[in-house]
């Protein structure tokens, strides 16, 4: 009922391969973009600062990771470490007087270089072993960050971000930080959607599906995998810097721990591997669902509806989070993207059950 496909036609293959071929989708995207861009005007600072802003940034992070995990099929359980590299690089660069815009770029590059070294492991192993290798790298980076005061910032291990401006906009208010993060997330989204349609994107998919078969059809697995790690790490590094400057406004090692890596993988999986919309939905779900459910339960508890101890209540987000991951894997392994797709299809073929002829 929302979708009208009549009169949607294409006179070239370029047009036929447009991202949003269906006008309704296009309008939906435009409406969402406008809504997102105007969020600071109608969303209270509480919701903007503690829900919308992190959601946007984590969506960018999930997109970065899903490029690697979803498209290229390279498992990565140490992505928070990559983001940490970006965050620490950017903050030290800015402190050293590098303009913020350049610092973002450089921090991405630094993350890409180190992230590609991580990727070296991927050239030899896959699956479980890649999980273990990246996990070990996460611990290594954590250790280096914590134990090198020059990186972590001395005794308190907290580095506050200096005041910066992006282009001509001073990044001082919540709204400006949100807009910068949104801009980055949108840029990543656009990039991701387009990369799927390039030869690089198809090479990634070929590698994911069967790497030696990909080699047979002329895709160099060595280069493609490294490029995948580099690209993904670049995106993750900049996202880490954005996270530091736009959300935390300080960098501490705890922000990029092992659990954060797991959380990212959860976002990617719950959202649906390799899916753009899934990255946004997954990030939002993993981030917000436990919070909202906990607030709900604590509201019920405060109202005397459910007698639960503070200890139980406090552990509830963990339980919900774990149960959510399990639930999704068992019930909808293709994640929220699949659920969204089902809903979209439901309306797309309305009032029928399937698309006809």
């Amino acid at each position, binding site marked *: 009922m929302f979708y009208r496909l009549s009169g949607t036609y294409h006179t070239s293959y370029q047009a036929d391969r447009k991202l949003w071929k269906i006008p309704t989708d296009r309008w939906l995207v435009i409406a969402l973009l406008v809504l997102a861009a105007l969020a600071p005007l109608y969303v209270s600072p509480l919701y903007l600062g503690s829900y919308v802003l992190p959601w946007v940034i984590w969506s960018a992070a999930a997109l970065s990771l899903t490029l690697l*995990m979803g498209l290229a099929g390279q498992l990565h359980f140490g992505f928070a470490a990559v983001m940490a590299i970006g965050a620490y690089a950017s903050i030290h660069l800015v402190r050293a007087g590098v303009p913020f815009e350049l610092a973002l770029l450089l921090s991405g590059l630094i993350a890409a270089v180190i992230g590609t070294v991580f990727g070296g492991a991927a050239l030899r192993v896959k699956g479980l072993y890649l999980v273990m*290798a990246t996990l*070990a790298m996460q611990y*290594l980076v954590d250790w280096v960050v914590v134990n090198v005061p020059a990186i972590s910032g001395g005794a308190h291990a907290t580095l506050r971000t200096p005041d910066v401006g992006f282009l001509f906009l001073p990044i001082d208010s919540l709204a400006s930080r949100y807009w910068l993060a949104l801009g980055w997330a949108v840029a990543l989204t656009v990039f991701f959607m387009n990369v799927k349609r390039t030869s690089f994107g198809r090479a990634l998919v070929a590698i994911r599906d069967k790497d030696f078969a990909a080699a047979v059809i002329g895709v160099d697995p060595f280069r493609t995998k490294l490029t995948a790690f580099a690209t993904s790490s670049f995106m993750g590094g900049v996202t880490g810097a954005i996270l530091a400057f736009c959300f935390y406004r300080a960098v501490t090692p705890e922000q990029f721990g092992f659990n954060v890596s797991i959380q990212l993988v959860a976002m990617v999986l719950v959202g649906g591997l390799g899916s753009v919309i899934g990255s946004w939905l997954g990030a939002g779900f993993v981030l917000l669902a436990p919070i909202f459910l906990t607030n709900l339960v604590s509201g019920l508890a405060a109202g005397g509806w459910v007698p639960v101890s503070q200890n139980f209540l406090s552990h509830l987000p963990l339980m919900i989070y*774990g*149960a959510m991951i*399990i639930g999704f894997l068992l019930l909808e*392994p293709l994640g929220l993207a699949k659920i969204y797709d089902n809903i979209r299809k439901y309306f797309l073929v309305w009032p029928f059950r399937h698309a006809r002829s």
Partner: protein
Amino acid sequence: MAYFLELLISGALTGLMYSLVALGFVLIYKSAGVPNLAQGALVMTAGYAVWMVMAWGLNVWIAIPVAAAIMFGFGLIVERLLLRRMVGQPVIMVVMLTLGLEILLRGLVPGILGSTPKPIDLGIDFAPIIIGDVFINRTSLYGGIAALALVGASLLFFRTRLGTKLRAVSDDHVSSWAVGISVERAIGISWGLAGIAAVVAGALWGSSQGADWTLSMLLFPAVAVVILGGVDSVPGVVVGGILVGVLGTVIPGYLDSFAGGSTRDVVTSLIILLTIMVRPFGIFGREDIERI
């Protein structure tokens, strides 16, 4: 020299205590091909279980078997409800499922039973065994002995009729089905056995630090052990454990004073990385890992 020897011995014993955690991992991987990243949480749950049973007023020697029975059942349930439905899914799904289980348990168990460390008194004497200038920690010693005993028992078990079935299952699911072995039951049992191994690990580790969620962090060194020893090798658990323990104790023992920080995590990480780079299937693992 005595310092080195002491580090060597305490490292080996500590490593064997890691082996207790790693054993559960290997048992499950060997039969089901499932990398159980929830083994740390299983150990934590087992620690809580031992504490809980002891809190009923039972003697420790009764409490441990009771907890073992509980954890055996728990392992069966986990396998039946969760893992069995993941058969045929890509490894990332299985890994993430076990991580989800780990997170769930880490919320559920302390959430219900309380998050302050729970004392487990195994009645082990504090006084070290002193040989020359070498002090040997009794808890570690008993832990090491327990680990060796459990690994030995596992090896013997694999020689029994049921164990043979398990081995067959670990070799080839389809063929095992074909000859009438219940693969599901075999995998279920291996989960149960992993639960029992977790009880021993949980009790010993819990006795020195108290049972709380941090027990689940034993997963990381245990992963190093299994990677080094080979994910599907029971003897590998012993060798891997001793190596990880010794390297993780001896190297920091000399290095920490220079590096200015604990280097054990680094050593553990490097063990994992180097093993995967050089010999992904580990020391005793089967060389059937897919590589380019």
